[in-house]
């Protein structure tokens, strides 16, 4: 069923009774060519591109809850490719390009809004670090603009520009093509797209173990019985360690909780995505009007999907310091997601020590924006049993060898990335 303004009118005239399911609700088959574990954005995108680009349609996506119910539906919806290291820059830019045509590709409006992202800075050392990053972006074909104070004032007129604040703003680095997207819609759009190409999306189907023959997997044990698979891809960021524990692989990952918050809806106030340079705080405004913001991890291993007060207080203090008129706006909801924090802050999209098992995880808190690119390269990696040039550096083995991709330079302290 094709979506369009015309179809909306047609169905409106018949009481909207004609709309069919966006994706089927199939019973699992006995055997698939490829099983993707995890029905989040990444898993669904992988299934979509396997079918769309590699002609592999005998695919199942297994989801223990409902699709998009993990970090896909819990993040602050920011899309950007403003990375410094070449491998990251090129991968995220590929993802960005996919975002730019995604609604049309999927025939599902994911509301990708290129309203820009602005990282403000407060001193020369920060400016220099941003210059290094901005120049690296430009050299990788990514858009980047350095703004002086006046430029920042135009983009974010309500920041505290007074001299009496602790860290006065002096400028900012912007990526005009950055922005936001409607997070749930990404999962739903890929689910619908994959389903239309024949992929089985199986919700309420929890993987409980793997059946293997030496270094080869035969399939997965699930809450709905054994399902055989030629290849298995795991895209369960937040829970990667738990799944890989089932095959005896210990990962360079810790799970941490990251909180996010939304205010009551208000008329447009914040027209770009903006990050604070003197504390960990980022903010944007959703199309519904809520200001969506976040900050630091709570800082300790957690699978709790909820955070505590000290981080909450600290994040909001950063926000009100950056933008004092926020003080009277009210927070509507506080929630948390569980992040796969990798040991160098960069994801892992890789083959594994088991022949037909593939890993997609370690997204830290940058997974949402990667969704299309992640699915695209993961599908390539599974289909060809070999990494694509774009994820060649994102191996599981890089930690052992030392080829780290440490964007922040903080080393093997996952809670600091």
């Amino acid at each position, binding site marked *: 069923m094709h979506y369009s303004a015309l179809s909306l009118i047609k169905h409106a005239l018949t009481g909207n009774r004609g709309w069919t399911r966006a994706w089927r609700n199939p019973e699992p088959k006995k055997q698939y060519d490829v099983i993707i574990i995890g029905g989040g954005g990444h898993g669904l995108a992988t299934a979509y591109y396997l079918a769309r680009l590699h002609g592999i349609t005998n695919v199942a996506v297994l989801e223990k809850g409902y699709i998009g119910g993990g970090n896909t539906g819990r993040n602050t919806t920011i899309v950007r490719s403003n990375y410094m290291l070449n491998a990251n820059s090129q991968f995220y830019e590929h993802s960005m390009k996919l975002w730019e045509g995604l609604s049309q590709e999927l025939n599902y409006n994911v509301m990708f809004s290129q309203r820009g992202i602005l990282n403000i800075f407060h001193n020369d050392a920060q400016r*220099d670090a941003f210059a290094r990053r901005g120049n690296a972006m430009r050299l990788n074909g990514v858009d980047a603009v*350095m703004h002086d104070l006046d430029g920042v004032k135009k983009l974010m007129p309500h920041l505290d520009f007074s001299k009496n604040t602790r860290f006065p703003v002096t400028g900012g680095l912007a990526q005009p093509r950055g922005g936001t997207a409607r997070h749930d819609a990404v999962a739903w759009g890929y689910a619908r797209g994959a389903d239309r190409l024949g992929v089985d999306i199986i919700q309420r189907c929890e993987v409980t173990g793997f059946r293997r023959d030496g270094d080869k997997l035969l399939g997965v044990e699930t809450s709905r019985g054994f399902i055989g698979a030629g290849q298995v891809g795991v895209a369960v960021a937040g829970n990667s360690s738990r799944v890989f524990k089932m095959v005896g692989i210990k990962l360079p990952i810790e799970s941490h909780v990251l909180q996010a918050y939304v*205010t009551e809806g208000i008329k447009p106030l914040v027209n770009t995505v903006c990050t604070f340079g003197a504390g960990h705080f980022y903010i944007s405004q959703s199309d519904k009007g809520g200001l969506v913001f976040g900050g630091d991890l709570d800082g300790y291993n957690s699978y709790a999907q909820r955070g505590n007060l000290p981080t909450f207080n600290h994040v909001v203090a950063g926000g009100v310091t950056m933008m004092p008129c926020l003080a*009277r706006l009210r927070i509507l909801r506080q929630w948390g997601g569980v992040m796969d924090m990798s040991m160098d802050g960069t994801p892992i999209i890789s083959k594994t020590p088991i022949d037909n098992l593939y890993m997609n995880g370690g997204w830290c808190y940058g997974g949402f924006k990667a969704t299309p690119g992640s699915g695209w390269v993961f599908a390539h990696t599974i289909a060809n049993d070999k990494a694509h040039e774009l994820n060649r550096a994102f191996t599981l083995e890089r930690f052992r060898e030392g080829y780290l991709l440490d964007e922040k*330079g903080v080393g093997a302290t996952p809670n600091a990335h």
Partner: protein
Amino acid sequence: MTQKFRTTDGGLIDRNRPISFTFDGKSYQGYEGDTLASALLANGVHLLGRSFKYHRPRGILAAGSEEPNAMVELRTGARKEPNTRATTIELFDGLVAKSQNCWPSLSFDIMAINNLFSPLLSAGFYYKTFMWPVSFWTNVYEHIIRRAAGLGTAPTEADPDHYEQCHEHCDVLVVGAGPAGLMAAQAAADKGARVIIADEHVLLGGSLNSEDLTVSGKPGNDWAAAQVAKLSAMDNVHIFTRTTVFGYYDHNTVAAIEKVSDHVAVPAPGKPRQRMWIFYPKQVVIAAGATERPLIFGNNDIPGIMLAAAVRTYTNQYGVKPGSRAIVVTNNSDAYRTAIDLHGAGVTVVAVVDSRTHPDAPLAAELASLSIELITGKTVGAAGGGQRVAYALLVSTQGDTEEPQRIDCDLIASSGGWNPNLHLHSQSGAKPVYNEAIFSFVPGQSRQAEVCVGAANGSFGLQECLDQGLAAGAEAAKLAGFKGKNKKPPKAGDDGDYSIEALWISPTPYNKSYKQFVDQQNDVKVSDVNLAAQEGYDSVELLKRYTTQGMATDQGKTSNVNALAILAGQRGEPIPDVGITTFRPPYVPVAMGVFAGHTVGHEFMPVRHTAIHDWNKKQGAVFIEAGLWLRARYYPQSPSDTMTDCYIRETNNTRNNVAMIDVSTLGKIDIQGPDAAEFLNRLYINNWLKLPIGKVRYGVMLREDGMVFDDGTTSRLGENHYFMTTTTANAAPVLSHMEYYHQTVWPDLDVVFCSVTEQWTGIAVAGPNSRKLLKKVIDIDLDNAAFPFMAVGECHMNKIPARLFRISFSGELAYEVNVPADYGEQAWLELLEAGKEMGVAPYGTEPLGTMRIEKGHVAGSELDGRTTALDLGLEGLSNRSKHFIGKHNSARPAMLAEGRLQVVGLKSLEPGRNLRVGAHLVDDKVTLESVSQSQGHVSATTFSPSLGCSIALGLLKDGTARHGEQIDAVFPLDDEKIRVEICHPVFIDPKGELVRA
């Protein structure tokens, strides 16, 4: 200004204290004790705003914080508060409020045209369109949608009010001061427990204030007042009014917001607007009450259609008649009281319409005695009216095949049953369970030290509330360690038994279709829920996300259970199988200001000053942030002095004469013990076992992953006594790192250490005349032989006890004097005085940076956490025959492979063009637009006064082997490209003769 809809008497308002306020520019009067909602109703104002999507007229549904509709912009200017519930605003003199989301006016709103297109605007319609042409989403469609969305407008000025954060410990926290809460507090306090009881309202008593009930033979509100007075008199009870407990967090911590000044126009001097409380109770009794859910029928959102209990609240507590001709529609016994109370207040009750065929006999009899018609087996199928309800259409619950019965009215009081307020219970980690008797969720097994009582526990009878409150309060005190006999609960007057039959959606009148609202604030209709299920968004979370049900500012307090039941109906499954969405904090929306507290603006982070700071300030020094420290960056001598003028002057004075810099911000750690040397040997890559007493050594530390962590000098002051310095930025991390290894990995090492950063002021005296200057004030032999490079000694500077280090960052003959921080400024002044005749002057961090680049010393911009000692040219210091942190991982293949970024010097080959930090190093074939692999970057730059050209340090792929080559330094952000020569990073005095002179 008559309050036409006031009752003649009664209510808990003070009729002797009239209060003036304006709504949408029009003046009205209310009384003290009113909310904005009750005052507007008293004036006959029912239309308060427009709905989110269809801009339908909306009024007042509820009487508390569950209100979905009656939201206004309160106050103006910098104190403006959008989306404020009229039902929770205490009326104050001069209150100004305005309706939202309407244009040009509340009564005539152009966007109400959306109402006609509602079939097009069904759930998720925006996912199906607005995709063509591609560029139109961000530029056109989204723009329009964003303007249409949102409700009120935000203030754009800084908030003039301030907010506090406080902490309080107690044995028992009671949430809610209704009958159950008051009893719980009493029972716990009687046993001697320290009790906190918190309630949203200023008037405690909960339903006792809004219902016609008796306790111990007294009117409920009188009993509550007496109970509050009793609790107030107890030393071990702390009562918080206007305080909403909004979050239940880990380890039994509970957060609340106290509205200290929201009931006045402007906070009194010194008073915060609001206060956040973090309570640390041993036990929590949740007596948070219950929320009524509305019945769902056609046009159930018209102003004048209200929750039945809210109607009682307005009538009984506020002395307001919410209408003249009322219909009560219900599926349960509770709403009968609304009819009885309205009747008592002089409102005509046309009928009570009960969907049940067998209503409770005593209630039926009571209605009969009041001559109120009781219609059973029917319900309201739809309502009619424009901006105020005008009639109800009655239908049989089985559905009809004939025209419905029409009853004219201006008030419909509706009750679909009660939902216990489980928010805090759920936030504490517990899972609510479905209860078939009340058709709602009730508390499940507790996960933390909490218990729900009374209506929050699904027990709606007053006697049950009192009994449970008393028992729970006593039990909580016992669990907290208090003994004593339990008392007997007071006797409640008979309030009947609660009985209910499920009715989730009313049948619509024959052959008609209507909008039936589930979530009134987000305009989510029954048809939207059905459509979502039809399209496969059929889990409770997907439903919520697809339709936005429950995601508005009321978080679905009145709509969640209804939506769940409708979804269950669609799926053909029992409600408990469909599940329930997670309750997230906060229980009510809470201002960001109160989370931030006082740590905002200038107080966001502390500022650290050295002992020399005041002097620097008096000199007019320009400061720079170094972590939390403020350091003097340079010292202008006249208003026209630029930074360049200053740093060149200060550099020249250092290189040619003598100058001083405050280096107190470096981290300093005093280390003592027999194993101190061994400890250092493991921390640093270099050798420490043979460092003689009286000598300083430069050391490099790695992280366990093999990257350089920090560098600095450590001096041996005595047999077992060492003194370490760290970089300013890493002072705290290095100390923690040392403590970690000492306490968790090598506890056998006999060593102790602590930070002495604040205890010492450090002053570097640098330049060819530095020895001459110091000889005047230092009491030890400073001749080169007696006190050579890298010597350290205890001494006096004039009369001040001091330590002298012969170390140099500038590359000149230099010393560092450390004196106790209390003598810091004095020592600084005495040095200036001693050097006056030779022209000593202070220098800042800017010339310091220049000189360290000239000297090729790596610093923070090269130690960026991705560089190894080898990359930085420091591997020569390491001793791989001993063990040190990072040794093994710094020997991984990739650490030694080709292609790593290594430190190099760079010289601009284009006179007059200065290199900039952040430029990248690329082959000359690379154009600014091409996608390329950067080969490295410029990490630190300066115009070197000594060399007369722009120089830099950089990190370049395999840079060590490329000295003498040329490369481009590009800065695409500014379209710049400069040809540079790659060279050794040490630009001056490569043999280090100056420092040893």
